[in-house]
């Protein structure tokens, strides 16, 4: 219970401070405040994909359907946060680069993540039988995860980028963020992560309950 109160306090702080504090990047102006929400959303979208992949690996090793529920719930949340990150990113792109979409490498990779989530759900809905669905969906989640390093590390070398790459750390790994920005950004990152864990846990409880109810009905 206590951590829900902590989450409430931190989230309130983030929402207020994000609008009251000076904008993080003076050159871009007021619009750069979206950074406080956009980056944590993208982070959660990727985190959820990692959770989903780990649960998929566990399912293939142990064959426990609970791990399949973990993978699915994480993917559902990841899809939601991925959508939010894509939309906020598109608005920010419109303000700074004057177009909603221009196939910058990070736009490409977040869009591919969105497509992977979509394909994952399409695959799940097309297979009958819980065990078979869990196994094939796990294989696809792992297979798709393996392509991410190419999109994150290799494609930016082939395509030119517009993304601000030095807003958190510069190329030598030094933190370039100002201390006031960090005071909002890191709590925001933590708040979004806790929010993800909380909703993930609720979703898992619902799906476990649903499966148990279905088993009762069969009996």
């Amino acid at each position: 219970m206590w951590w829900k109160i902590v989450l409430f306090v931190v989230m309130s702080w983030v929402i207020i401070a994000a609008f009251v504090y000076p904008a993080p990047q003076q050159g871009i102006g007021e619009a750069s405040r979206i950074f406080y929400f956009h980056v944590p959303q993208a982070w959660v979208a990727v985190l959820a994909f990692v959770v989903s992949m780990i649960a998929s690996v566990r399912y293939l090793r142990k064959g426990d359907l609970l791990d399949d529920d973990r993978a699915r719930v994480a993917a559902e949340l990841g899809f939601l946060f991925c959508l939010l990150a894509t939309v906020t990113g598109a608005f920010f792109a419109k303000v700074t680069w004057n177009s909603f979409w221009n196939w910058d490498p990070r736009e490409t990779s977040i869009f591919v993540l969105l497509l992977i989530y979509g394909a994952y759900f399409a695959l799940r809905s097309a297979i009958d039988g819980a065990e078979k669905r869990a196994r094939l969906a796990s294989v696809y989640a792992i297979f798709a995860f393996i392509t991410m390093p190419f999109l994150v590390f290799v494609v930016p070398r082939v395509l030119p980028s517009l993304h601000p790459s030095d807003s958190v750390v510069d190329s030598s790994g030094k933190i370039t963020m100002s201390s006031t920005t960090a005071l909002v950004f890191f709590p925001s990152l933590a708040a979004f992560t806790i929010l993800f864990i909380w909703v993930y846990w609720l979703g898992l409880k619902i799906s476990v309950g649903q499966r148990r109810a279905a088993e009762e009905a069969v009996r």
Partner: protein
Amino acid sequence: MASPKSSYGLAAKSLAVLRKDILSEYRTRYAINAILLFGVTTLTVVSFAVGQIGLPADVYAALFWIIIFFSAMSGLAQVFVKEEESKTAIILKLTADPTPVYWGKLIFNFLLLTLLEVIITPLYFVMTDVVLHNAALFFTVLILGSIGLAGATTLIAAIISRASIKGALFAVLSFPILLPLLIGAIGGTKKALGPVEAPFAAASSELQLLVSYAVVMITASVLLFEFVWEE
């Protein structure tokens, strides 16, 4: 993994699966017809629409890979779908280990793709007025791209052959996974079509991308195939 009871090696078993697939394809010609006719149709549409306009090399490189991608999507799933539809998958599961089945199907898909390219590539240069400046780089990118394309889609084909809506799912599941490959292949082809100094050096990052993609995806497929194939 070779089972201890059998005296044949992995290569011999894979070639046996490949031989069986080529034989059954020779009798029905289903996948060849689908992939070649789709390829020629798409090529005709592209040529009819933009062939004589004289667009920059970038656009021709992208169009070429769009033709290859969609033709591949129309035929490469057949290698597993036909096993499920004709109910022969169970017999294949009983008589062969998963890994040789994967290798046999992968080589079959690669050969199918090569056949498509052998027919599409000359026609493409005839029907659009694009000039090939560097043939060696072009064919290197084409072969590496085909290995990666076949390598990534063969596992997807095995997955969708077990699902209820097969045709539409294949392209949906394959596209996000193939995107890094397509970016590298289109970039490399672009450099082969345009007048570029020292083209292999200029396209080195694309070539590295294509080689590492093919190696990683085929390795992952070999490891994961067992889970898709076994009941």
